[in-house]
Each structure stands twice: as structure tokens, then as C-alpha cells.
């Protein structure tokens, strides 16, 4: 439009600071909106990742209430899972299959090389069936292993992914070791010593065997290394022949997912603990909801104040110019020229500010995400990024910020234009 640049320059002379401030507030509101949505969802994701389980819907993990696996050995107490209990559960019409798990009640340790440095830890072994091996890997992994195989093949180990997270967060960081990813540990060769550990040893001589981590799982016990069940039963029989045979856990598969509650009820009646996908999911959901609600409330408060400030400064800026508008109208300026200026100043520039704020918010989220992941390897191992950019939600949020602020300003502008000139000139 002819003279538009000059008109805008005259219109803003002496008001640049206010105008830049109002647009700056809009930019900050957009930046905060994108940052909090992006990082908030990223935090939600990481919580879900830490708290989630791969337990299928039709499976129940039944464990004794009083048995805990520690780093060094198992402790016993409370109701234990005996063969009778397993038979009772197997007799339930809802049960399709039971995969038992057994702790090796024998001290053991693991030694290996991690990142070129010697690594040693006392361990607990838990015998599990091949139900823990992901279906996609079953044909590549030979889950049958007895002591007689020790000279021909390594002992296959399934590692808990949550143990990896703890390793990354604690030991690796404090020891200056490199962090490990689930993919990174597969194929790692170690040596497992059974019969003695740093704090205990049995009369029979220890056995030292080659082992290899073959896969990871989110469903195995946190502190135990899962190995083939027949190997653990062999070890228990060899070192503790008089020990009472009990199970560390039963992985019960129901015919249908709908049968799971009944199995849970029966297990709990027997004094056992039952864990289901739904139960884990509910716990995770509650925690994630609490964290995201807290983050959301903080974000909403900051966003509200930023948007309110943006609206206030936009409107205050217009209010400061109501006299100038009065002068222009008194001199016969066409209203559409004033509307063009408003459209450029408020709609167009606010759009640019909101868009810039959004892009800067994405950039800030990306930088914060990268920094946190670099500072905290435990996060890096769990997720590739903390910044999530759901385009639809971000666009809707930015659109809301833009429309709320500009529509408020537009109504105020219309109100000024509708005010009699004589009144505007009196201000």
C-alpha cells in the first residue's frame, strides 16, 4: 500500500519500546508454551519408559511377598511358592500355562570388561523359561543350558533393562565408565562365578563359566540375572542338595485377558503378590499423571501470566495511542488505512512473534534436552530425546495464544474507533 511504510514509521515513532515489549511478551509466551509442552511430554515419555512393562495382557507374575532378590543373595520369608501352590494355580480353569522361575540360592559374582575396564559385581541368578526371550529372538537364542554345556557354549543371560538404568545412573557415572544401552550390552561376554562371592562362599569349590548377555527384558527381577531355569535348578541341587525347592516367581498365562483378575484373586488369597500389566500401567499412570499435572500447572501459571502480560501490553499500547487515533480520525484518515496498520502491527507482527517464539521454544527444548541427556547418561540410555514436538498440539497452542491476544487487541481497537472523535481528542 502506498505510503504504508512511512505511515507505520510515523505511527510508531516514540512508541517503539512499548511495541517491541508487547511483541516480546508474545514471543516469550509462545516460547514458554512450546517449551513446556515439548519438555512436559518428553518427561512424561521418560517416566512411562521407566515405569512401563512388557508384560502381556493375559499374563500375571506371581511372586512371594517375603522373598527379595538383592545384589548378593536372596532372603526368604513369608509365603513361598511351593510345587503344591504351583499345582493349585495350574488347576485353575483360567490358567493356560505356568512358567516357573527359580532363584539360585548360591552366592555368585560376575566379572568382565566394560569400556576397557575390569568390572566386578556380586549377583543373584534367577532361572527362567524361554518365555522371557522376545519372540523375535527365539530362533537365534538357544535357551537350553546345563553345566555340561559350559565347555562348548556360553551361559545365556537376560539382563533387566531397569538394572541397566541403575547402572548408568549410579555405578557407571561414579566410576567413569561408559553408559550402556540395551542394544549395546547384547553380545557382551562375561564370566560368571558360582559358589562364592565377595561376602560368602560355600564348601564345594566354585565353578567359573563363560557367559554372554543375549537380550534384555523389562519383566525380569531388577537385581537378578535371568538364566535358563534348568541351569539354576542344577546349581541349587549341586550346592544345596537339602534345600527346600521353591519358586521365586510364576509367570502365569491365562486363556484370555479377561481371566487375569480371577487368577490375581486366587493368588492373593494364597498370600502371594500378583502383578499384571494393568496394575503396572495404573501405577505408572498415576505417577506420570501427578508429575505431568504438576508440570502442567506450573506451565499454565507461567503461560497465563505471559499471555496476560502480552494482552495487557498490546492493549495498553493501543490505549496510549487512542489520542493519536483520534487526531488521525479528526483529520479525515480513512478507517481502512487504520485497520491496515492495525492488521500489520498486531495481526501480522504478532503472527511473526508467535511463530518466532514457537521456533525459539523448539530450539530451547532441543538445547535443554541435549544438555540434560549429556549431563545425565541414565536419561540418554533410556530415551533419544527429551523434547517431543507434537505439531498439531503445538500449532493449536500457538494459535490459541495468537488469537487470544490479537482478538483482545482487535476488540479494543474497534472500541477506540467507535469512540467519538471529540472524546478521543480530550484524552
Amino acid at each position: 500500500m502506498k505510503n504504508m511504510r512511512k505511515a507505520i514509521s510515523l505511527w510508531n515513532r516514540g512508541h517503539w519500546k512499548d511495541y517491541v515489549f508487547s511483541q516480546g511478551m508474545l514471543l516469550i509466551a509462545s516460547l514458554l508454551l512450546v517449551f513446556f509442552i515439548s519438555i512436559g511430554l518428553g518427561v512424561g515419555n521418560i517416566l512411562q519408559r521407566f515405569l512401563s512393562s512388557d508384560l502381556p495382557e493375559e499374563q500375571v507374575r506371581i511372586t512371594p511377598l517375603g522373598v527379595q532378590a538383592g545384589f548378593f543373595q536372596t532372603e526368604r520369608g513369608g509365603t513361598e511358592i511351593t510345587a503344591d501352590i504351583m499345582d493349585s494355580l495350574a488347576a485353575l480353569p483360567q490358567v493356560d500355562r505356568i512358567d516357573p522361575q527359580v532363584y539360585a540360592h548360591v552366592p555368585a559374582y560376575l566379572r568382565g570388561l566394560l569400556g576397557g575396564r575390569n568390572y566386578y559385581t556380586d549377583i543373584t541368578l534367577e532361572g527362567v523359561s524361554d518365555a522371557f526371550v522376545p519372540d523375535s529372538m527365539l530362533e537365534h537364542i538357544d535357551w537350553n543350558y546345563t553345566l555340561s554345556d559350559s565347555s562348548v557354549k556360553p551361559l545365556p543371560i537376560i539382563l533387566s533393562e531397569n538394572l541397566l538404568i541403575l547402572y548408568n545412573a549410579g555405578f557407571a557415572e561414579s566410576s567413569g565408565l561408559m553408559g550402556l544401552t540395551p542394544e549395546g550390552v547384547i553380545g557382551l561376554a562375561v564370566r560368571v562365578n558360582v559358589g562364592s562371592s565377595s561376602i560368602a562362599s560355600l564348601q564345594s569349590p566354585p565353578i567359573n563359566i563363560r557367559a554372554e548377555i543375549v537380550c534384555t527384558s523389562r519383566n525380569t527381577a531388577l537385581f537378578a540375572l535371568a538364566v535358563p531355569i534348568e541351569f539354576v535348578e542344577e546349581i541349587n541341587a549341586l550346592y544345596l542338595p537339602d534345600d527346600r525347592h521353591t519358586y521365586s516367581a510364576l509367570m502365569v498365562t491365562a486363556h484370555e485377558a479377561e481371566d487375569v483378575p480371577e487368577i490375581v484373586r486366587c493368588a492373593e488369597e494364597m498370600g502371594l503378590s500378583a502383578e499384571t500389566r494393568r496394575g503396572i500401567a495404573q501405577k505408572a499412570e498415576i505417577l506420570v499423571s501427578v508429575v505431568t499435572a504438576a508440570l502442567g500447572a506450573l506451565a499454565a501459571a507461567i503461560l497465563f501470566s505471559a499471555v496476560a502480560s502480552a494482552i495487557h501490553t498490546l492493549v495498553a499500547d493501543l490505549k496510549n495511542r487512542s489520542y493519536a487515533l483520534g487526531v488521525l480520525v479528526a483529520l479525515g484518515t480513512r478507517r481502512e488505512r487504520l485497520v491496515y496498520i492495525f492488521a500489520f502491527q498486531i495481526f501480522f507482527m504478532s503472527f511473526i512473534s508467535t511463530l518466532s517464539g514457537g521456533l525459539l521454544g523448539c530450539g530451547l527444548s532441543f538445547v535443554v534436552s541435549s544438555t540434560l541427556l549429556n549431563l545425565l547418561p541414565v536419561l540418554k540410555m533410556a530415551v533419544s530425546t527429551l523434547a517431543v514436538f507434537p505439531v498439531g498440539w503445538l500449532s493449536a497452542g500457538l494459535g490459541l495464544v495468537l488469537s487470544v491476544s490479537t482478538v483482545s487487541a482487535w476488540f479494543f481497537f474497534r472500541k477506540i474507533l467507535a469512540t467519538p472523535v471529540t472524546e478521543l481528542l480530550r484524552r
Partner: protein
Amino acid sequence: MSKPLISARSVVRVFGNLKVLNGADFSLYEGEFVAVTGKSGVGKSTLLGVLGTHDPAFGGELIINGVNAAEASSPELAELRREFMGFIFQDFHLLPNLNALDNVLLPAVFSGTDTYEVREDAATILSRLDLRNDNTPTRFLSRGERQRVASARALVNNPRILMADEPTASLDEESEENLFDLLDSLRREKGFAIIAVLHSKKILARADRILELKEGVLHEKHA
């Protein structure tokens, strides 16, 4: 006699219970200089507000250049002000952050008619009014200087009617004479009409007609 540029009949303007204009009749012809006088607070500025189409809340008939102001739309009235009239307001109504030239060019810039010729005209008028054409914002100018900037702004669009509300109130005698010398010469040159609220006897003597506003009605003092 030719058709009047402004013809007002029985104009009434009421503020609450106060009838400030109570059936004022007025007409203004091409090239004529009409002065309006009256005591303070009698409604002279209100009269100019109505005649200048800034105040649409009046009763009676007001025809400006053939347009019935009482029935005209807001854009039509804006066009009348823009194309037909120039205003020197009592409080100047300059934009304080702009310099003299930008204030003078304000109507042209916002109407999209800010051409090289208009800029030349503006600079000429400013110099004829003894005003510096520099970047000093008008908020730093004296009242007299601002009065002259307001006068220059009113003249730059070559109006057919110049409406001036006490245009010499802030000027010393010499400046007052200078301003009206300039207005007279431009009036002769361009043929516009002037309606001005005035008190100075010297300037009143230059008017073609003097009208006194009394109790909301205009009375002709002498021709």
C-alpha cells in the same frame, strides 16, 4: 450568490440538560472569512466541532459541499474532512513525537497522497510560517511554534474550508499578524474559506463577517 460551502439550519447540541447550541443558523461561502466570537464557554468550540463533522450528535440540518452531514456515513464524513477541510484545533492536536514536517504531512501520509509536491508545499508553508524544518519533536516546541505547525498542517492539503479554533491564542501580536497575513495571501491565492473562532480585535477587523454566539444562537455583528 453562489451555493454555500456550509449551510447549517437550526443546529442544536445538547450536553445533558444543557443546550449549548440552540437553533444556530450558519452559512459559509467560497473564499469568505467568517469570524465567530463569544464569551468563554458559550459553545464556540462545540459549534466548530459540529461544523467540522467531529461531533455527529447534533440536531438540525448541516449541509457541507452538498452532503447532508446528519445522514452521511462515517467514511463520507471522513472524506469531507480529508478532502474539503483543514483544521487548526485549539489544543493543536499534534503528535508530540513527530517533528513539524511529519506532523504537517500526517494527513497526506495516512491518505496515501504524500507525494514530492506535497512535501515541497509543506516545506514552503513551514518556512513561510518561520518554522525550522528539522527533526525536533513538536513536544519540545513552544506553544506559538506548535500553533504554527498546526496551521501548516491545516493548509497542506489545500482545503476549501479552513476551520480554526482560536488560531492566534498562543501567538504574540507580530506572529498573529504574520499568520493572518499568510492565511489572507493563501486565501486570495487558493480561494478557500475561513471560519475562525477569534478574540483579537485586529484580526476580527480582517473578517468578512463576524458572528457572535450567544445563548446557543449566532448573531451577525457586522458585515
